[in-house]
């Protein structure tokens, strides 16, 4: 089967902006190696979990896959499209849910927000409203469709972000701690939704700290340690993850 996501020797080095002291002393700021020589292949219908300590490079890798961040070296292709290309080409292929709750227009209602996003995916006005309503029902937010997003709880906003990520029916979903802040009942529904999506061929890459979530949902688990990846089967992840966390 052709790989949906293919990362080859991906390295990401950040060069922080120099501070005044460094500027005055003609010093360069220390580069930060976020990822080093990463290889990963993900096929349609697979779920991979990225696990690791805070700052290990999980979110950086997800952002590289979505094209909002460019690698320092190496290549990343999604369905044959390089992530270094025009981002709008990736827009059809990739759906992203960030770790934080930013990216939502807080003065809009969920209905207005998703209708706007649907328009960015090419839906005309009436179709956009219909798509927005469908997505809200899908993530259990139909009851609060008209309330300002700023008044929604953290869990509701996370579900809205998931609805936004799913809106373009992407082939690849990038989810950064998708179930954080969501109540157990809704989390179970969303887990089932992710399983259904993979059954329909969507590939999912999710960053999580939840061992149980990784074990139950994922085909493979990738431990991220100091910017390097090591893959494990889900049943072996517990001892490896605890080793990484305690090191």
């Amino acid at each position, binding site marked *: 089967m052709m790989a949906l996501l293919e990362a080859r020797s991906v390295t990401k080095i*950040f*060069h922080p902006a120099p501070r005044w002291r460094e500027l005055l002393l003609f010093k360069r700021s220390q580069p930060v190696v976020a990822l080093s020589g990463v290889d990963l292949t993900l096929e349609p219908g697979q779920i991979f979990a990225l696990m690791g300590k805070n700052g290990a490079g999980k979110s*950086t890798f997800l*952002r590289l896959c*979505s*094209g*909002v*961040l*460019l690698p*320092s070296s190496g290549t990343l292709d999604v369905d044959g499209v390089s992530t270094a290309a*025009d*981002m*709008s*080409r*990736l*827009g*059809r292929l*990739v759906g*992203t849910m*960030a770790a*934080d709750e*930013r*990216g*939502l*227009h807080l*003065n*809009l*209602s969920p209905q*207005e927000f998703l*209708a*706007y*996003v649907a*328009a*960015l*995916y*090419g*839906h*005309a*006005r009436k*179709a*956009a409203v219909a*798509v927005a309503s*469908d997505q809200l029902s899908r993530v259990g937010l139909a009851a609060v469709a008209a309330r*300002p997003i700023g008044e929604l709880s953290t869990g509701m906003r996370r579900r809205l972000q998931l609805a*936004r990520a*799913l*809106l*373009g*029916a992407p082939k690849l979903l990038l989810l950064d701690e998708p179930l954080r802040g969501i109540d157990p009942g809704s989390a179970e529904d969303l887990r089932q939704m992710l399983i259904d999506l993979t059954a*329909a061929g969507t590939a999912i890459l999710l960053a999580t700290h939840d061992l149980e979530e990784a074990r139950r949902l994922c085909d493979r688990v990738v431990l991220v340690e100091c910017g390097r990846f090591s893959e494990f089967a889900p049943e072996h992840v517990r001892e490896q993850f605890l080793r990484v966390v305690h090191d």
Partner: protein
Amino acid sequence: MTENVCHPTARIVLGATLRKQLSETSGRWWSSAIHVLTAIFGLLSPLFLSRLVDSAPSNKLGAYAGRYAPFLILGLMALHFQNSLVSSLGNRIRQAQTEGTLELSLSSPTPLRLLVLSLFAPDFFSGIARLLLYFSLGVLLFHLHLSAVNAPALFAVLALGTLTFFSLSLGGAALTMLLRRTDPLSFFLTVSSLVSGGVLYPRSVLPPSLALLGRLIPIAPLAEGVRASVIDGKNVIELASPLLQLLVTCAVMMPLGLLAFGYALRRARMDGSLST
């Protein structure tokens, strides 16, 4: 699951952006009301100043001696039109960076050129609304007579002015992305326009160095063209000089603005600063 077969067109994206903008501002109607009131009260000082100047006409005003009030209101109108358009993309991008919406918009299937136009559109329409407000107040308070207006000439001047300011706005947006601050370009343009652009007084009163600066900034031909088409009723051919000046500025600045914007976007994707 929704089938992915639609293509974002200018009509869909611009329409959705304007509806979003209206929804967001309708929840903050008092903010819009304060903007309108500020614009009206901000014209009180120029109103009394113009009455003072017109009470003792100066030859230095040239053709506008004794008609300083309409001269001033049209100059201020051109200045505010410039300010709202030039600062548009920089402000919108900075806001989207801090709110985290820029990355998500850029990673949608909407082509970049359409996204940029949709960011610019609300400020363009707000700039047009402000023009109409200034025209109305000009007629009511500043002895502006619209009977002589040459509409095609005015339209040509404003259209070229809009394109020129859009190209400068692209440069401002590039600086915003590179510096992660509100762009300094619009500040520089506002200050230089007030001093050298012929907004408050004719450029003929300036010393040579400042007069030269005035010839380089686009507010000067815009203000000149607006005044000539509205007060003197000059046609497009009679306005060839300011129109040509705007056209040349636009022809130079547009490719530079596009190049700078493309470079800054790539740099922001490299630094990871699209959302900071």
